[in-house]
Structure formats: structure tokens, C-alpha cells
């Protein structure tokens, strides 16, 4: 380095000597001293460049020049604070919006699983050509399963417990874990009774995940044995909120569904569940599954193998940790081999037929309803739960299909998912069928059942699936916003480059290298975008929090996604900022160095010659940028408009009932030990007491509330149709006064009376009567099945005793009510039958006189008087329920609307900027026009014309692009076409209005040009 200093210090002296020598030589050749000196200097060349080049040899010039550029850039940016502020703000909006949405994408889609070395974890996924022959299948939203009736190539991630034990025992993986939702858990022993959410995990679960306990210990293999005492591990967040983070919880006993569990530890803070978006309060050993669900035992007494030992009941998700050094293909072949062997050679356990209390007609979750199926509890009684209440159950499929076509006619007999009857499920199924032969296998050779090991990171989708579409849509929108911001700032830079032409010309003339100037200008633009990025992160932080609080305001439980600006988000922002800076900086930079020196130096700025040019060059860079901005803004606006219209359409959908002032809460007497008819009388008792509570106008209950995403369907035989044909209807079990409470008008017939409920309870029990169960149907049911026939008194669905089921008396229509929406707003109204509710869970609906929430304390008191250990859950109002149903639409419409406005504002700033620049550039021309007698209106028109023409071209281009793009919105829209002319024209009008406003200010300024000042402008 010392050598470097010496060399450089002496360089100047050396160059002087050199020129002096050359001058002497020239004089010696006979030149005059002046001439000699001039010739010597010319021969030597650019002294500064030589010095710089020499310096460059020695140093990290790159860095030095960067520092120089940065200092110069700071001075330049400070010199024009207005430009800097607008550019930085524009970029901050663009970058901030991108960072905010990306941080959501990061949290939801990209973050790695909260376990040690997530890359080693694999998820087991089976597939076959045809559906295997199993009794039941449940998945908890951890991984999407494709198991629709009769569908070819089904697949899924649920396995039976015996299969899990076999795979775990084969020692293929370093650790093998199985888990399943525990269903609703009624917790007592820690203050008032509450309902929490737990997960059953195998003994090796936590070891396989590589997790540690915050305090105490985690569940281990010895806890998952039949002899082990029941233990539980708490979620960190739950420990904090419910136990105040007290260290004394270790060793404490709590009751889960009336079973005592000892708390042994608290899990790591970051771990709320293995699947993204899941959040469990407690973890319980798998072996306790049967104890915490007493219904399980009842089911066994009916002759059904319990879930734990039933190889034909698939309900566990399995994750394994790969052994280091073992090739994945080898492990996969081993697992697949075990599975295949069981599928082809293991016998499907027999359902002990004959004693079954009727084959269930009930089917939870029609295959046609996408992702909106209620979550069943782990017990045999399908427990409908609104989707939002249980994280991690986004796409649960739970079906009993025993009422389907007889196996003989079903051909191969492969399509058979049967869940044995919910014990007390109402009777009414026709065609009780399914006589599985003892020798039946799960699958055949040609079905090719196999298991694939897929990365747990990508395989465990969880609630991600629900958010991915809207997130990618929003990512697209903010991407467009960033482009607009870039075009906007590029326009500003172009205008500035024009203003700095003289500066550039001087620098070029003084010998600055062209590349050097481009680099300097790029440094300036990257500095702008970096500033924008810093500010953008602040915007993003604020924006992401707003979104998250909006999201969580909608959840009854905390959102299972941790938001935050992590390294990946920061990296993204840095990359976006750099990219942006280069994108908007490069064109203006190159343009400003392409300067014809002499005329630029000679003439002043704002020469009138420029005005003539701009007319000829209609499609100048500035104009192109503005047109681009307007077009992109139109695309975002059209998309936003369509989504907002969708939301409006959904909100104004005719529900068929009055959703205002209805309080909803769930209750599950079975969790508090009520059995059979006891539950019925509890409901009846509560209903009476609640109806008399002051402020309550009317009270009723149903198996689940309307518009809660829960849906039940049933199949039956309709008289007059072929024997093997089944008909289908939605079904809902309701309590007394249901229609009065919800304001659903009767069109014919009567409401249920007390004897109807007794009859329904009897028919739903073990010894059905011969009288058909009374039902009330909706208009669509009448239209579809009865036409002009009088519906009242019509009986259907009766069936004689079959080889597998007892005789069922069927149904008789006693009333007809108006059509209502059932599970969600988008679904068409289907035929619907209401049955008297008996047994099982229920949700109460109370019609209140005023604000339903205000009544809550009184309601709790009434319920508490009946039984203090009966927690209310899913307390909400019908309107909140609908809002929750529309949550995604509301979120997307709101954000898209915001981004649409942002795009519009940015495009207008661009338009305004361009016109302002044009006006100031053409000040002299305008001055001359005015001096020559042009009226202000003419001048106004001159400027407005350009602006409006640009806006129009942009709008036309934008609508063209929008027409091409909005097609992809298709599935998110409701009652509005992607090419909706109303939305398109509304956007066009809005844009025109705002564009005129944006043009008007510079145009006004043009009319105020004082000709005298303008002519003296230079």
C-alpha cells in the first residue's frame, strides 16, 4: 500500500515532467513554444483520465467510485427534495406492498416446519388405481386427500393404526410419528370448564420431530403404552394464557373429557403443531384416544372394532425421519412393500352386521362441496364444527356411504367407505347393504396400491391450501403495483434527465467516461430505490400487521402462522429494491448520456426546438411510460372491481331467513357425561329456559347452525324410482321452534310437535317403530321430487330389513318451508329435509330483541344453572358467522380495492408528472402562443388533450389486458362474469375522471404562463 501511495503521489509530477520533455522535443523540432506545449498535451491525452486509470490499477476503484457516486447522489437528491420525496414515496409504496404480501406468503407458504432438520422429514402418502375397501377414513387437513366416490386414482395420507405400528416397528426410519386431531376436548380442573383443541400423537412423535420441552418433559414412547398413566404436554402459548406460564403446572392434573391427565411438560415455544397453520392446545398420547372419547366404547359394544385395532379405519397421518445414509428410494420401497402386502393379503375386518341399529343415511361432507366440510370428532358421532373453530381441519372428508348402491350392482365393489352407524343416528336409510365377506382384501393387484415418501415440508399443506390462491392473486397485484411505481419513477427520472442534460454534456465534455456516468446515474436510482425499500419495510410491517389483525379478528382461535420480517423477507426486499432501481434507472441513464454535446452546451434549457420535436415524436418514452402505468392500473382496478362486486353479490344473496340478532353457541352434553335420552331432555329443558330469558324472543337448536360451512346429506329411496336407485337430499336435525326463531316462513303443513320428537328419538334408537319419521322439506325438495303432487302426508324412504340392516320406517312430510341457504352462500339451494333433533351435539340459536352479544352473560348463567360443567363453545352471532364465511372474499376484496386505489393514484401521479414536465419544458412555446393571442381555453385544451389522450390509450390497452387476465379469477367470482361490462365501464369512467383531475393542475398552470416571463425564460 505504501508503494501505491508513493507511485500515485509522484504521478502528477511525472506527468508534468513528461509533457515538459515532449514540449522541449517539439521546440527542438522547430515549433513555437506555445504550439509545442499544445501538441505535447494533445499527444499525452486526458491527464485526469490517466490519473484515474493509474489509481484504478492500485485500488479497489470500484468501491472508491461507489463511495464517490453515493456522496454525489446524496447531494443531487438533496438538491431536488420534491423529486426525491415523490420518487421515494412511490417506491416505498411499491416495495412496501410487495414486502407486506411477500411476508404473508413467507409465513404461510414458505416457512419451514417448526422442527429440527425439517428436510429429513417425509410424509407417507398412499395411492392406488381404485379406492381401497375400507370402513372409514378421516383426514384432518394435514394433507389433501383425493378420495371421492368412484374416482380413479385416489390418494391420501391417512393410515390405520395397525399399519402405523407395523411401519414404526420395521425400523425403516430414524423415528416414526403418527398423529390425528383429538377432536373437541372438554377441559375441567383449571377454572371454569372450557373446550380446547388437542392432538393425539404417537409416543415417538416429539423425538422424531427433534423437539425439546420448555419445562418438564415431552411425551415419550413409554407414555404410549396401554399400561401408561395418561399424561399431556401443553402448547407454550396455551400454557401462558391458561396457566399464566406458571412452572408449577408440572405434575398438575387436569380432566380432559372426564379423564384425568397429568401435565408433564410444555413444548417449545415455536411449536404449535407440525402442520403449517395448526395450533393445538395440548398433546395427548395416541393410546389415550379411546379413553377420551367414551363413545368409542359404545361403538365397540355394537360389535365394531374400535379405531385403534381396525385396519380398515384410516385416520392417522404418518411422518418419518429419514435415516442418514439410507437412500430415500430404499426406504420408500420398504414402506410401500409393507403397505402393499397388507392391502393385497390382509383381510378387511368384518363388520359384525345384523346388530347394527340401522345403517346410517347420513353423509357428512358431500364430495361436491369443496373444502367446506365440517370436522368430525374422533368419536363415532360426527360432530359438526364450523371450519374456523378448529385449525388444521380445512379439508376434512368424513363419509359414511353405506346407504349407497348395493355392492352387487356396484361392480367391482371397491367404492365402499363405510363408517358404521353413529349409534343414535336417526334411522331412515334405505337399501341397507354391504355384506363384506370375511375374505375380502383391501385392494387388488391391478389397483397397484403403493406408498410414496414425499417431503413433509411440501406435503403437509394444512391451511396453506386455503390461503394460497388469494395470496398469489395479491402477489400478482402488488407486482403490478411495483411495475407502475417503476414506470412512474422512470418517468420522473426521464424528466430530470432532460433537465440535467446540460450537466451531463459538461461532464462528458470534461472527459467523463460514458459508462462512468451511467454507473453514477444508476447509483442514484438504486439509492432512491434503497431509500424506498427502507421506508417500504416500515410500510410492510404496518401493512402486514393490519392484515394479520384483520385475519385474526375473524378467528375464534389465534392464527397458527407467525408473521414477521425474517431474513428471507429482508432478502426479498433488498432484491426487489435493487431490481427496481436498475429497472427504472437504466433507460433514463443511457438516454442522458446519448447527448449531442455541442448543441446542448450552446443552447439553453427549454429550447423551443424541443417543442417541435415532441409533436413529431408522439410516442416518446415519457408517453409510453404513462400509457403503461395507466394500463397496469386499469388491470388492477378491474380485478379489484370484480372482487368487490363478488363480495357485494354474496352479501346480497337471499339467505331465506333473517340473520340479524341471532346468537349462536354450541353445547356438547356427551362431553359432560350425558347419555342418550338425557341429552334430549337437557336440550328441551335448556330451550325452554332460554326462551324465557329476558331479551330472548325465541330459542331453538339444531345439529349445527346454518351458514357455518357444515353440511349433511342423506340418501334414500324415492317411491316410484327403480329399486337400486337412490335419491339425495340435504338434511338437518332441528329442535322445536327452529323456523319461528330463524324467521323461515311455512308454505304448507305444520311445525314439529312434541310427539314428533319422541317418534324421531324412537326411530333413531335401537328399536325403530313402524311409523315414519316426520320431516319438513323445502321448496326445492317439493319441486324436485313431488312436482304438483300434494307434499303433505307423502311418505318415502321406507325399507324392509336387509341382510345388513333392520327395517327402516322412512319419512313422512308434515310441512313445507321456504328455501334457505345451507352451508355456505355460493352453493345452490338443494332439496332439504329437516328432521326432529335427537341426541348428539347441538348448536343453540336465540333470536334476541337487541344486540345478541350483550345477552351472553345472562345466557351463560342460565346454562350454568343447569350444569356448571357444560362449556359453551363457538359462541358467535349469525351475522358474524356469515362474515366469517365470507372472510376470504372480504380480505381479498379489501386488499385488492386498496391496491387498486394505490395503482390509480400512482398512475395519476405519473400522468401529472409528465404533463407538469411538458408544461415547464414548453413554457416558451406556450408563452409565444399566448403572446400571439391564444386564448387560455386553447392553451388549456392543448395540455388536457395530451393528458386525456394518454389516459384513454392507457385505459383501452388496460381493459384489453384485463379481459385476458381476469379469466383466471373465474373461480373466485360469484354472479359476475370475468368480462363484466359494468365493472369495465365503471373503471374506465373512474379513471377518466381522475385523469382529468390530474391533467387539470398542470394545464391550469400553462394558462397562467406570463408571455413576458416566458420569453425571457432563459
Amino acid at each position, binding site marked *: 500500500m505504501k*508503494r501505491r501511495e508513493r*507511485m500515485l503521489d*509522484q*504521478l502528477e509530477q*511525472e*506527468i508534468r*515532467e*513528461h509533457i*515538459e*520533455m*515532449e514540449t*522541449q*522535443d517539439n521546440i527542438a523540432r522547430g515549433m513555437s513554444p506555445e504550439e509545442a506545449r499544445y501538441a505535447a498535451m*494533445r*499527444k*499525452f*491525452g*486526458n*491527464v485526469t*483520465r*490517466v490519473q484515474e*486509470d*493509474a489509481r*484504478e*490499477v*492500485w485500488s479497489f476503484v470500484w468501491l472508491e467510485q461507489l463511495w464517490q457516486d453515493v456522496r454525489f447522489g446524496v447531494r443531487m437528491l438533496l438538491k431536488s427534495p420534491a423529486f426525491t420525496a415523490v420518487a421515494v414515496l412511490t417506491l416505498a409504496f411499491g416495495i412496501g406492498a410487495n414486502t407486506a404480501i411477500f411476508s404473508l406468503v413467507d409465513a404461510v407458504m414458505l416457512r419451514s416446519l417448526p422442527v429440527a432438520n425439517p428436510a429429513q422429514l417425509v410424509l407417507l402418502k398412499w395411492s392406488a388405481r381404485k379406492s381401497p375397501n375400507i370402513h372409514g377414513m378421516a383426514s384432518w387437513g394435514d394433507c389433501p386427500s383425493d378420495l371421492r366416490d368412484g374416482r380413479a386414482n385416489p390418494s391420501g395420507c391417512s393410515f390405520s393404526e395397525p399399519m402405523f405400528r407395523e411401519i414404526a416397528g420395521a425400523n425403516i426410519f430414524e423415528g416414526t410419528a403418527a398423529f390425528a386431531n383429538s377432536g373437541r376436548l372438554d377441559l375441567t380442573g383449571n377454572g371454569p370448564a372450557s373446550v380446547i383443541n388437542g392432538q393425539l400423537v404417537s409416543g415417538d412423535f416429539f423425538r422424531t420431530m427433534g423437539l425439546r420441552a420448555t419445562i418438564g418433559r415431552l411425551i415419550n414412547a413409554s407414555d404410549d403404552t396401554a399400561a401408561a398413566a395418561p399424561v399431556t404436554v401443553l402448547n407454550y402459548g396455551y400454557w401462558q394464557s391458561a396457566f399464566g406460564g406458571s412452572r408449577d403446572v408440572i405434575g398438575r392434573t387436569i380432566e380432559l373429557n372426564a379423564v384425568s391427565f397429568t401435565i408433564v411438560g410444555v413444548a417449545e415455544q415455536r411449536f404449535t403443531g407440525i402442520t403449517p397453520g395448526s395450533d393445538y392446545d395440548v398433546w395427548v398420547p395416541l393410546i389415550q384416544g379411546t379413553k377420551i372419547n367414551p363413545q368409542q366404547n359404545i361403538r365397540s359394544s355394537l360389535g365394531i372394532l374400535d379405531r385403534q385395532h381396525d385396519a380398515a379405519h384410516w385416520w392417522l397421518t404418518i411422518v418419518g425421519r429419514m435415516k442418514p445414509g439410507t437412500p430415500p428410494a430404499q426406504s420408500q420401497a420398504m414402506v410401500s412393500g409393507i403397505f402393499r402386502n397388507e392391502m393385497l393379503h390382509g383381510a378387511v375386518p368384518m363388520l359384525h352386521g345384523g346388530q347394527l341399529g340401522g345403517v346410517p343415511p347420513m353423509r357428512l361432507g358431500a364430495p361436491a362441496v369443496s373444502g367446506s366440510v365440517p370436522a368430525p370428532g374422533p368419536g363415532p358421532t360426527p360432530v359438526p364444527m364450523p371450519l374456523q373453530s378448529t385449525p388444521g381441519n380445512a379439508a376434512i372428508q368424513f363419509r359414511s356411504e353405506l346407504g349407497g348402491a348395493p355392492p352387487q350392482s356396484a361392480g367391482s365393489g371397491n367404492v365402499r367407505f363405510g363408517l358404521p352407524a353413529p349409534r343414535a343416528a336417526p334411522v331412515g336409510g334405505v337399501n341397507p347393504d354391504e355384506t363384506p365377506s370375511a375374505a375380502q382384501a383391501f385392494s387388488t393387484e391391478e389397483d397397484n396400491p403403493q406408498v410414496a415418501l414425499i417431503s413433509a415440508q411440501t406435503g403437509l399443506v394444512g391451511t396453506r391450501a386455503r390461503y394460497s390462491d388469494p395470496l398469489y392473486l395479491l402477489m400478482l397485484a402488488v407486482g403490478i403495483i411495483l411495475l407502475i411505481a417503476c414506470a412512474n419513477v422512470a418517468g420522473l427520472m426521464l424528466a430530470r434527465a432532460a433537465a440535467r442534460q446540460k450537466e451531463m454534456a459538461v461532464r462528458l465534455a470534461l472527459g467523463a467516461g460514458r459508462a462512468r456516468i451511467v454507473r453514477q446515474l444508476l447509483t442514484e436510482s438504486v439509492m432512491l430505490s434503497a431509500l424506498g425499500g427502507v421506508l417500504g419495510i416500515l410500510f410492510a410491517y404496518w401493512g402486514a400487521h393490519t392484515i394479520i389483525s384483520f385475519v385474526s379478528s375473524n378467528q375464534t382461535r389465534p392464527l397458527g402462522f407467525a408473521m414477521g420480517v425474517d431474513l428471507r423477507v429482508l432478502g426479498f426486499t433488498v432484491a426487489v429494491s435493487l431490481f427496481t432501481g436498475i429497472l427504472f434507472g437504466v433507460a433514463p441513464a443511457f438516454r442522458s448520456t446519448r447527448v449531442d454535446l455541442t448543441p446542448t452546451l450552446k443552447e439553453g434549457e427549454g429550447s423551443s426546438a424541443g417543442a417541435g420535436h415532441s409533436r413529431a415524436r408522439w410516442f416518446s418514452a415519457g408517453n409510453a411510460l404513462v400509457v403503461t402505468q395507466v394500463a397496469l392500473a386499469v388491470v388492477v382496478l378491474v380485478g379489484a372491481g370484480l372482487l368487490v362486486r363478488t363480495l357485494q353479490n354474496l352479501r346480497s344473496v337471499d339467505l331465506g331467513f333473517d340473520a340479524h340478532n341471532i346468537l349462536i353457541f354450541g353445547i356438547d352434553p356427551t362431553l359432560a357425561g350425558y347419555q342418550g335420552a338425557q341429552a334430549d331432555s337437557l336440550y328441551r329443558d335448556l330451550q325452554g329456559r332460554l326462551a324465557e330469558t329476558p331479551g330472548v324472543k325465541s330459542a331453538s337448536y339444531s345439529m349445527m347452525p346454518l351458514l357455518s360451512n357444515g353440511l349433511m346429506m342423506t340418501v334414500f329411496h324415492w317411491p316410484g324410482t327403480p329399486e337400486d336407485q337412490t335419491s339425495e337430499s340435504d338434511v338437518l336435525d332441528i329442535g322445536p321452534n327452529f323456523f319461528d326463531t330463524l324467521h323461515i316462513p311455512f308454505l304448507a303443513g305444520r311445525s314439529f310437535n312434541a310427539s314428533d320428537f319422541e317418534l324421531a328419538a324412537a326411530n333413531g334408537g335401537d328399536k325403530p317403530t313402524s311409523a315414519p319419521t316426520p320431516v319438513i322439506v323445502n321448496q326445492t325438495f317439493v319441486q324436485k321430487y313431488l312436482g304438483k303432487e300434494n307434499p303433505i302426508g307423502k311418505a318415502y324412504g321406507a325399507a324392509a330389513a336387509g341382510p345388513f340392516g333392520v327395517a327402516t320406517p322412512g319419512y313422512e312430510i308434515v310441512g313445507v318451508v321456504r328455501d334457505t341457504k345451507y352451508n355456505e352462500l355460493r352453493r345452490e339451494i338443494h332439496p332439504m329435509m329437516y328432521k326432529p333433533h335427537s341426541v348428539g351435539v347441538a348448536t343453540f340459536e336465540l333470536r334476541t330483541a337487541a344486540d345478541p352479544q350483550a345477552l351472553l352473560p345472562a345466557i351463560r348463567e342460565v346454562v350454568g344453572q343447569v350444569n356448571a360443567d357444560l362449556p359453551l363453545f363457538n359462541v358467535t352471532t349469525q351475522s358474524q358467522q356469515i362474515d366469517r364465511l365470507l372472510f376470504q372474499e372480504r380480505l381479498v376484496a379489501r386488499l385488492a380495492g386498496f391496491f387498486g386505489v394505490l395503482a390509480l393514484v400512482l398512475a395519476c401521479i405519473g400522468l401529472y408528472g409528465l404533463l407538469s414536465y411538458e408544461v415547464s419544458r414548453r413554457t416558451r412555446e406556450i408563452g409565444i402562443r399566448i403572446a400571439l393571442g391564444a386564448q387560455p381555453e386553447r392553451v388549456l385544451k392543448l395540455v388536457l388533450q395530451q393528458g386525456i389522450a394518454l389516459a384513454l390509450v392507457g385505459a383501452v390497452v388496460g381493459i384489453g389486458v384485463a379481459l385476458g387476465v381476469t379469466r383466471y379469477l373465474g373461480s373466485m367470482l360469484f354472479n359476475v362474469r370475468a368480462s363484466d361490462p359494468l365493472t369495465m365501464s365503471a373503471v374506465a369512467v373512474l379513471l377518466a375522471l381522475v385523469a382529468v383531475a390530474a391533467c387539470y393542475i398542470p394545464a391550469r398552470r400553462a394558462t397562467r404562463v406570463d408571455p413576458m416571463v416566458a420569453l425571457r425564460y432563459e
Partner: protein
Amino acid sequence: MSTKEQRERIGLLQGTLDLLILRTLILGPTHGHAIAKAIEFKSDDVLQVEQGSLYPALHRLIKRGWISAEEGTSENNRRAKFYRLTAKGRRQLVLETSKWDRLAGAIARILRPSEQEGKS
């Protein structure tokens, strides 16, 4: 006008200047101006060297250790910096020269194939 002049002379290929400097210094240590003069003189003024560009090249060669610099007095008694070829530079010159010969030969063969054949 200056552009016209340049067209009649030949610009230097990238890196050739280094070779020419090394070649000039093999005759003994000398100062910058003399190196420039020598290159011009020996090439019968065909090679156009912008004299200034000599200096960054000299610095580059010093940095690589192919030449060294020392204080001295020029022929007309001025203090000047003298450049001397180092042993490493000498080796480099041999290497570069043979490289150049091969390159020149190859280009010549491409440009004048018949002549080459005739000669050989």
C-alpha cells in the same frame, strides 16, 4: 481532425502496450517519456500510443512485479522516475513474445492464406 489522424495510424491491441514496454526496458532502465519515444520511434510512428496511457500501464506492471521504479536523473538533468525490468518481467517478456508470435502467425495465416502457403 484528430480522428482522421488516428485512422491512418494503428491503435494498440489490448495488452500489447505492456509487451512493448517490457521489450523497450530490456535495453536498460529508462523513464516514461523515453519509453514513449522509443515505442514511437521503433515502430516508425505507425503505432499510435496516447502517451498518457503509458502511465497506468507502468503502474500495472509494477503492481505485477514485472518492472520496478527508482529515482534517477534524466539526460537533461531533470529528476525523473526510472523503470527497470525485473527478473520476473524478463521471463514474462519471453513468454509474452512467444505468445504474440503465435498469435500474429495465426492471424496472418487466416488473413493471407495463399501467401503463407507460397512462402512455406
